[in-house]
């Protein structure tokens, strides 16, 4: 297989590397984290101006029509510097859902604004009981005159506090856990009856819970056919997982680099601790896991935009499982090899470790994906 990047991909990567290196030092990230939205709007605008926000969006809708590999290049660099902007949630997951389910009018009105970075999206699928099951939806939408009325509670909507529009799943028919009857709506967070409780997640990015109290939304806020959103939700979660794997690889590479640097610098018993064989073994194990994870992230990027199939789902589940296993292993080993300093707030490794561990709990944890993989193997 040829893993060489094309000239354009190389330049795209160079642009992101330089931009992130110049605008996202650890100290700057700290300021962004403590600011009101929990990220940098200026950086977000820069992503838009340079055309990076348009990469995952189709050319027909004002985007660049980038491939999974293009998304991988961007996400890896954002992950390397622990960027807090909801690029994955808005540009990949949100825009992907809008593109797949939206009608021509909705796509035409919204996607060019998303591609330019002017409009940020968030995706609200999780509920407190759902535990990664996209069809476990208790939020209800009922038909009323001229539109829909929504009631329910969505949790941990990353970027939901700053998004201009939230894509929200709700049950329009059937019982909880039915696969039919799930619809996707475009929710204006400023609508009457919507309340949001924002908070920073333990790994950095800010999120919110969304409570819907008989919220009226117009009929044209429905995306796709009523009750038939589930296949699209599953497909786009696959794309988001591929992007998340790339983000994790960027974080792991940086955690590995920081640890290697530390081992070469820290002296104990009159020698750099990297001279000790037992620590070298640990580094070799970390490198092995990192290489496995990188390969799986590339595989995920390559299949993310393929036509939906069991094979695609199986590969994405495998990628997520291998990547989060590696992420947790590298995070834990990096802390062990650093000792106390690896846990301090003032040192970026601690934040990488938190992010790498928490990635497992977003878009399905390892148990969830291992089970999905096993079931797909059975049915194959």
């Amino acid at each position: 297989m040829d893993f060489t990047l094309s000239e354009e991909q190389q330049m795209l990567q160079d642009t992101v590397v330089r931009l992130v290196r110049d605008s996202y030092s650890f100290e700057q990230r700290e300021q962004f984290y403590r600011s009101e939205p929990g990220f940098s709007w200026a950086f977000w605008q820069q992503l838009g101006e340079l055309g990076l926000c348009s990469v995952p969006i189709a050319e027909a809708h004002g985007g660049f029509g980038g491939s999974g590999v293009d998304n991988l290049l961007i996400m890896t660099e954002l992950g390397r510097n622990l960027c807090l902007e909801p690029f994955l949630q808005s540009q990949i997951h949100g825009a992907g859902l809008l593109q797949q389910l939206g009608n021509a009018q909705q796509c035409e009105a919204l996607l060019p604004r998303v591609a330019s970075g002017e409009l940020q999206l968030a995706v609200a699928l999780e509920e407190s009981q759902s535990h990664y099951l996209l069809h476990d939806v208790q939020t209800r939408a009922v038909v009323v005159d001229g539109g829909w009325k929504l009631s329910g509670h969505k949790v941990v909507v990353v970027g939901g506090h700053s998004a201009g529009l939230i894509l929200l799943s709700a049950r329009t028919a059937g019982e909880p856990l039915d696969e039919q009857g799930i619809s996707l709506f475009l929710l204006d967070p400023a609508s009457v009856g919507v309340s949001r409780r924002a908070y920073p997640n333990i790994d950095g990015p800010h999120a919110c819970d969304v409570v819907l109290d008989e919220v009226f939304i117009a009929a044209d806020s429905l995306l796709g056919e009523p009750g038939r959103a589930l296949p699209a939700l599953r497909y786009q979660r696959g794309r988001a997982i591929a992007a998340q794997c790339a983000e994790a690889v960027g974080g792991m590479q940086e955690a590995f680099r920081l640890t290697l640097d530390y081992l070469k610098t820290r002296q104990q018993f009159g020698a750099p601790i990297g001279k000790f064989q037992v620590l070298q073994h640990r580094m070799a194990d970390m490198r092995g896991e990192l290489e496995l994870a990188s390969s799986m992230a590339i595989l995920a990027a390559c299949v993310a935009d393929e036509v939906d199939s069991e094979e695609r789902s199986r590969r994405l589940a495998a990628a997520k499982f291998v990547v989060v296993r590696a992420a947790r292993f590298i995070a834990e080993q990096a802390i062990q090899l650093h000792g106390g300093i690896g846990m301090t707030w003032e040192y970026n490794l601690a934040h990488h470790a938190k992010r790498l561990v928490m990635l497992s709990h977003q878009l399905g944890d390892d148990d969830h994906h291992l089970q999905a993989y096993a079931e797909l193997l059975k049915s194959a």
Partner: protein
Amino acid sequence: MKVLVAIKRVVDYNVKVRVKADESGVDLANVKMSMNPFCEIAVEEAVRLKEKGVASEIVVVSIGPTAAQEQLRTALALGADRAVLVESSEELNSLAVAKLLKAVVDKEQPQLVILGKQAIDSDNNQTGQMLGALTGYAQGTFASKVEVAGDKVNVTREIDGGLQTVALNLPAIVTTDLRLNEPRYASLPNIMKAKKKPLEVLTPDALGVTTTSTVKTLKVEAPAGRSAGIKVKSVAELVEKLKNEAKVI
């Protein structure tokens, strides 16, 4: 006005370079290569001149291996109009590069040639000056400000302890210092446009230039590692050590 910008492919400034075991040079295997940062500033200045309506065409030229096309494409993505690569796999010294650039200048007849003041790999700071001597053009080195006024270009130079402004008759040669401007990022639409811009490949032979070097690198050594610091008990002790041991005050 046509502007010619010379750029060089060098090891990325963020890479920690390693000297080869035989001390013959720096190990370039699997090392990230980029455009020399001073050359990026040169490209940026040319693009700004074009945006102001002063420059009508920007030609970028690089001398090096086939892979230097990557850096030329980057320059095209930053706003240059076309590119020329003088392909040579040899390690060329400053004079050979200046001679090749002279041949390109003769061919292209630019009014202004902008170069980085030096490349971060060899740190010679010679090519611009040598090109000035070979072409007979006026030169403004270490530029921190460039203003074209009629048939002259005013160049503010960074010199020891201050600034000097010189007026050069066009055609002229300018070498850029760090504070001249802050280079932009290549945006995605411009990256895509760069693909369609022309890139011409020439050889030293085609330009009729011999590149035989009169200089041979004997040895390359890494700088000595930093030794550990010491703790002092008082300011007085620090002053005493700075005065008597380090002899810096």
